[in-house]
């Protein structure tokens, strides 16, 4: 793959990601926001692939699109009355937020662009799955087990919180 193709694909995915994230945060309809969030996650997965992170990209698709987004949609449906047609979300603090976020992102972008990062020449990306699996069961085995316990506790806790009779 030559550089021009790479650049075009990068700009395509970056545009998808940023534009749909913009619609996520500005749309007043929550269901539309959730569906634009789908495109944001897809764009981020494409960026992961461009960066040579094949396994993380697939996990992003499975966990975010298949899990978290569905959870959010269930949340939207369960917290709005069926008879209540408008699923709108109000906004507060628009002007202070625009000013503050503009200042924040301007400062971050200026810091990024003026600083020189020490980068190493990149070679063609290799498959990462086997290496990640080896790391997970060798030097990161403890963290792997802890994450499993955290997920178990979180799911049991979520189920017990959500089912408690009010």
């Amino acid at each position, binding site marked *: 793959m030559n550089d021009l193709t790479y650049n075009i694909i990068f700009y395509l995915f970056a545009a998808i990601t940023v534009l749909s994230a913009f619609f996520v945060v500005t749309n007043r309809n929550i269901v539309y926001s959730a569906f634009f969030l789908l495109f944001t996650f897809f764009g981020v997965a494409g960026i992961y692939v461009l960066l040579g992170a094949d396994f993380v990209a697939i996990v992003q698709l499975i966990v975010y699109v298949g*899990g*978290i987004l569905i959870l959010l949609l269930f949340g939207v449906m369960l917290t709005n009355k069926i008879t209540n047609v408008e699923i709108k979300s*109000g906004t*507060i603090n628009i002007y202070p937020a625009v000013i503050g976020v503009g200042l924040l992102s301007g400062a971050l972008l200026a810091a*990024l662009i003026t600083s020189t990062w020490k980068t190493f020449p990149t070679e063609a990306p290799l498959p990462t799955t086997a290496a990640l699996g080896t790391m997970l069961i060798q030097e990161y085995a403890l963290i792997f087990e802890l994450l499993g316990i955290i*997920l178990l506790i979180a799911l049991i806790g979520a189920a017990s919180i959500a089912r408690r009779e009010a």
Partner: protein
Amino acid sequence: MIEVGLNHFLVVSTLLFSMGIYAIVTRKNAIQVLMGVELILNSANINFIAFTRFGNFGLQGHLMALFVIVLAAAEAAIALAIVLNIYKTLSTVNIDEVDSLKD
């Protein structure tokens, strides 16, 4: 056309981060606040993976990104359970109206 390098990826993640902060600050609905949190976690993951690609650290950045994804899943499950409970108790999920621990 300019060569796509580390800075391009960092700019994308900065924009995602800013929009996540914007969603958290301005939205009233708790679920859209959660969407903002997810955007912020994704921007952090892009940073991890971009620095892995352009740095010389091995694959530790990828593992950190995986851990972030797992914790995001746990966080989303718990947060939505809490939101459902708030809705059951107070019949609203607008976080500016939720100002008491019980009704």
